[in-house]
């Protein structure tokens, strides 16, 4: 138990929610802005505090620290709010805090219409994200995910760009389908295991002593794989992602692509793999083929063909999810650990790219890369940050992404040589589209359209309001890139304590 007077994890959920409630009750605008800073800062501080003190914190069963539970009235069904962090959820909790802060700061400096509602929805989303990774109870894990998902639909629908209505609708229908399938899978685990509680610790204990039969495991894992897969844009269920991200306002895209989408992967790593090892073994080859060929190569090539900068970032995010799926398919401790690292790294870098893409848009009035060019002369800082973000996204050593991809490739080599070669070809593809985008946008001569726009509306380099959130993300990427051990120690402990699929089946 924590010695603090207030449960920090509950605080990280309650702070943004109470600010959102205050906005809903009609606090004046000046106070709203101040409160919103608080609402985004508190979760980030809690996350950093948890990261800092996790190593020394007292651990309960299955390596969970900071555990606390609250009754909500469904105790008889085994549902109760139980919060805690283990080595796998801690990195994602930190990710949610950091990206949330950056997205919040970026939203606060933007000139969005109906600012109060915009902030309200982002704060609700932030509360959901923090709660999602802090939940030990599987029901609340799902519950918080949905809490964060609903604002996304509204954010896209109201503040979105081109095709926003269509995008909002297809996002809603697709993601509801994915969420429903995964909900069924979670119910299936609970009912079939005969556990008395939805709490993950109890589920693990129950299934460790009485594992499910192979057929049941296969079916339930299938439900979870496709349910979560739709939410993480597993090929061929990815088509909502680039469309939605292309239309979403920047802060919503940052939070969704950066953090919320990790729900599915996190669910697979934290819940499905340890609880259904035989099921994951059964599906490993199909998953690897879908992810390796579909997400990495096909989507990689599609990404290369994009003209629209934001769509390109959206597609690249779909592509990188392929690596994460490959790591899960490989199933070894090394691969799964790599997936957790990659989730954090990708979350930070894709949020950074969405942020910078919007900042570029404000200076060029277009997302079409063929109409840009020569922006480096007017915005050197923007250029520097964008190139950094591209390097990070490609997986250059020194950035966190490198420590995500490298273990996955090693693990994959043990799983399948051919797929490793396929996956490696993806790094070349991502280098091509990343660097080509940087070149199109920033170098070369200015296009006619751009010159005319800049005469009409002269804009300079990044403002400090835009720089600070970008620098926060880059600092996190570099910190983890230089010192990956700060996260990997906890991940190792969580994974070796609970051997995933490979250890159980081979």
């Amino acid at each position, binding site marked *: 138990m924590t010695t603090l007077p207030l449960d920090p994890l509950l605080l990280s959920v309650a702070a943004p929610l109470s600010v959102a409630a205050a906005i*809903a009750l009609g606090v004046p605008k000046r106070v709203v802005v101040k409160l919103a800073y608080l609402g985004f800062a508190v979760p980030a501080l809690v996350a950093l505090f948890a990261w800092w003190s996790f190593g020394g914190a007292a651990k309960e069963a299955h390596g969970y620290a900071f555990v606390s539970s609250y009754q*909500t*009235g*469904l*105790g*008889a*069904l085994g549902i109760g*709010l139980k919060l805690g962090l283990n080595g796998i959820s801690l990195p994602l909790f930190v990710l949610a805090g950091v990206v949330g802060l950056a997205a919040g700061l970026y939203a606060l400096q933007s000139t969005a219409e109906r600012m109060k*509602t915009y902030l309200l929805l982002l704060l609700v989303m932030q509360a959901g994200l923090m709660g999602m990774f802090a939940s030990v109870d599987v*029901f609340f894990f*799902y*519950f918080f995910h*949905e*809490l964060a998902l*609903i604002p996304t*639909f*509204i954010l896209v*629908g*109201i503040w979105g760009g081109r095709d*926003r*209505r269509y995008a*909002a*609708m297809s996002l*809603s*229908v697709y993601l*509801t*389908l994915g969420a*429903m*399938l995964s*909900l*069924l899978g979670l*119910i*299936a685990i*609970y*009912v079939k295991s005969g556990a008395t509680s939805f709490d993950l610790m109890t589920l693990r204990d129950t299934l460790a002593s009485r594992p499910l039969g192979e057929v049941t495991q296969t079916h339930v894992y299938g439900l979870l794989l496709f349910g979560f897969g739709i939410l993480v844009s597993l090929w061929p269920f990815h088509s909502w992602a680039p469309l939605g991200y292309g239309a979403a306002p920047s802060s919503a895209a940052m939070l969704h692509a950066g953090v919320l989408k990790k729900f599915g992967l996190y669910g697979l790593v934290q819940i499905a793999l340890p609880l259904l090892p035989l099921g994951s073994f059964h599906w490993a080859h199909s998953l690897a083929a879908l992810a390796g060929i579909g997400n990495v190569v096909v989507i990689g090539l599609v990404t290369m063909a994009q003209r629209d900068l934001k769509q390109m970032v959206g597609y690249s995010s779909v592509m990188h999810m392929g690596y994460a799926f490959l790591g899960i398919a490989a199933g070894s401790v090394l691969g799964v650990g790599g997936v957790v690292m990659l989730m954090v790294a990708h979350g930070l870098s894709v949020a950074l790219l969405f942020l910078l893409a919007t900042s570029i848009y404000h200076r060029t009035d277009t997302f079409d890369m063929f109409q840009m060019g020569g922006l480096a002369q007017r915005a050197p800082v923007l250029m520097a940050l964008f190139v950094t973000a591209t390097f990070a996204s490609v997986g250059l050593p020194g950035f966190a992404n490198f420590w995500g991809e490298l273990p996955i490739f090693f693990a994959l080599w043990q799983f399948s040589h051919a797929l490793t070669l396929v996956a490696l070809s993806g790094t070349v593809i991502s280098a091509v589209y990343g660097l080509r985008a940087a070149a199109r946008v920033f170098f070369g001569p200015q296009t006619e359209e751009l010159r005319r726009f800049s005469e009409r509306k002269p804009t300079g380099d990044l403002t400090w309001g835009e720089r600070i959130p970008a620098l926060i993300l880059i600092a996190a990427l570099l910190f983890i890139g230089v010192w990956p051990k700060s996260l990997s120690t906890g991940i190792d402990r969580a994974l070796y304590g609970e051997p995933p699929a490979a250890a159980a089946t081979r």
Partner: protein
Amino acid sequence: MDFSTLRELAEGNSWMAIWPELSMGCLALLLLVLETLLPRRAHSRIPMVSILAQLGILAALLANLRIPEHPAFNGLLAVSSLGQLMRVFFVVSSLLVSILGRANLPAQGVPRVEFHHIVLVVAAAMMLLVQSRNFVMLFVALETVTVGLYILVSYYRSNPRTLEAGLKYLVMGALSSSLLLFGIVLLYGVAGSAGMAARTSQAMYYPGLAAFLAANPHDFMASAGIVLVLSGLAFKIGAVPFQIWVPDVYQGAPTPVTAFLAVASKAAGFIVLLVLVTQVFAPYRWLVGPILALMAAATILFGNLAALKQNNVKRLIGLSGVSHAGFILLAVASAGQAPGAVGAVYFYLIAYLIASFTVFGVMTVLAGPDDTVQDLGDYAGLAKRSPFLAGVLACGLGSLAGIPPLAGFMGKFLVFTVAFRAGHYGLLAVAIAGVVVSIYYYFGWIRVAYFSDEAPITKVMESRVAGAGMTLRVAVALLAAASIVLGFYQGPLGLLLAR
């Protein structure tokens, strides 16, 4: 003469056990007395009297929620904690219908007191209906409900669509009542016929019939009777293939009455069905189980697919109500096979009550001079004109769509869990398809209210929103808050239902 039987009956009377029904009835009479005694200009205050008195009854009920289960009136009724919960349910429904009626009736030119009178009588009859444990009692209570609703449905009698709705409801209601009655007669007849094992003259009482059915689990006549009783009830809850009256009647009826039909009447039908399926027809699970499962699947699919293309919001909510009936049927079909199914039905109904009345409240505000014509287009720009009403509407629709953190999600979650426990995997696949389809039309509605920036705020909407009374605003705000709170904190309600 031997008076012992009569004395026995008289001693079995326990009037105190039905004090809520009696007080609702007395209140109904009081309203009529007030109308005769008070001068005409004071008549507009009578609905408020009804609302306040119902609040009083509600408070008294809530204070006595937990009571031991015991029979009353020699087993005609069974009083229990769940019965108390349903009494609260019906008092809340009639209270909300009164509030909606107070806002809606004057706008339609029929500000009459008798509307409120009938609502109270019908609510009292519904309370008796769900607690009845005897088929005669059941039928009398059911007819009181239905006859009252005949009048209420055709209340805006100058409107041709309302009259059409009234006629359809009358014909369909009579048909369903006769089916039900015919089924009861068959069951009673076969249970009393000579030569049957364990024949009984007590077949009008549920325990008597249940004992007979348990002794004859494959009798053809009894099966026919059961199917007829189920059909009669399926009409009341609007389940496929007896849903045909729903869209027209829901559109034509006055909006408060549509709400009453959609929520209270349907809930009463479901509780009766649940009691019969779990307590009486349990030996015929081989027959009842597949029928309910088939009906659930067809109802979910039909309701959701038919709602997709609706433009009139009353028809839309009616057809979505059909799909909700399907979800509840899913839980009823699992009752007896999975623990918690009964609790799931109750919770779903409560969540449905809260969400539906939230939406109906907003609909009442935006209803024009012709109550039967309310289109999605009327909602364009609502978020800009009144963020409050739009937010409340989004809460209601979101809860109906079943998205967390709203109560409707918990309802669906509980239903899915019990259906999974009962092994209805195919039905769950249908249910999930239904949920995904329903997202489309519920969000379509929210989208009109929120995303249509281009739509100018019309004068019509301006005047309608400005005309929304304080009572109604408070009521919908409380309902929306209840939807949110029940979504993550069920508290004592969860404990009550889990038992």
